[in-house]
């Protein structure tokens, strides 16, 4: 019985692509110096999936440690930064991947969320990898334009599944994160 269970677990883990986010680095932009206020630290720390937030002064970024096994929500990170009066200029999340196959300009379902990889070569993700978010309001405007030009799909403009995506089985209006690696 135990053996069967072990085999079942092994089979499942190869069938289902998973990724567990461990850490993130975040740069904020605004009219004033983002590192000169405690506000971003505080709004990020209030998020239920955030363990610690440290300011990396040299690189003008916040280093976020996520709680073990927590459901990391990139939109909540964005809202926290905006609540502090800033916007995200750069967001990178490091995750432990298990058998995640990614292709350029296509959608991948990872741990319940849909990711659209742009400017990416086809590869199988295993181990710790870092993905960079390129959605609108997750990067500077000029960077968003650069990445948005790399796809014909309309979802890049809204961050939500459009008619282009629904034929792949994505529910209309479902959140789609645009990323690169």
């Amino acid at each position, binding site marked *: 019985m135990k053996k069967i269970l072990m085999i079942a677990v092994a089979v499942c883990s190869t069938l289902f692509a998973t990724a567990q986010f461990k850490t993130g680095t975040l740069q904020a932009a605004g009219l004033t*110096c983002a590192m*000169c*206020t*405690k*506000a971003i630290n505080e709004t990020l720390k209030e998020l239920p999936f955030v363990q610690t937030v440290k*300011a990396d*002064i040299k690189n003008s970024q916040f280093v976020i440690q996520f709680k073990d096994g927590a459901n990391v929500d990139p939109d909540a990170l964005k809202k926290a930064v905006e609540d502090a009066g800033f916007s995200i200029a750069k967001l990178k999340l490091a995750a432990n991947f298990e058998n995640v196959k990614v292709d350029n300009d296509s959608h991948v379902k990872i741990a319940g969320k849909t990711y659209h990889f742009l400017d990416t070569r086809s590869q199988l993700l295993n181990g710790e990898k870092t993905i960079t978010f390129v959605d609108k309001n997750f990067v500077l405007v000029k960077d968003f334009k650069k990445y948005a030009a790399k796809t014909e799909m309309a979802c890049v403009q809204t961050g939500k599944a459009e008619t282009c995506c629904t034929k792949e089985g994505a529910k209309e209006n479902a959140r789609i994160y645009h990323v690169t690696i």
Partner: protein
Amino acid sequence: MNKKLLALALPLLAAVAVIAQPTVGERAYEISLPDVKGAIQKLSDHKGKVVLIDFWASWCGPCRKANPALSAIYTKYKDKGFEIFGVSIDDEKKAWRKAIQADGISWKQVNGQGGWEAPVALAWKLEQIPASYLIDQQGRVIAIDPTKEDIENHLKNLLK
């Protein structure tokens, strides 16, 4: 009955006061931290002078930008009973020392290592930098984040 309540409430109020930013009219909290040479400098050592407490850090652009204007005021009033007590929250002492040299800072400088979590930052409920407090000869706060015009006006009144 009322007196009893008051007696109960007073210590509570006092406890609350310690964890809030000082407001105008309140006594400034004591600061006791090492200077560049490692010698402990106390804010209370400057009682009798008008003191500007200036919270900053080497990596804080707006703070650095304000230093030339502070220098000008300092040069003008330092012999008339004015002192600036700079409190950096730099983690890296080397970066702090470099900034002092680069900006030609000649006023009192102490370092409260630890950024926003530094004991001095927590005690003063520091939310952002630059942050400054002007205190009178008795150690009472008379202005928070004063402009250089505000500082000069107070100095003209207080240092007659």
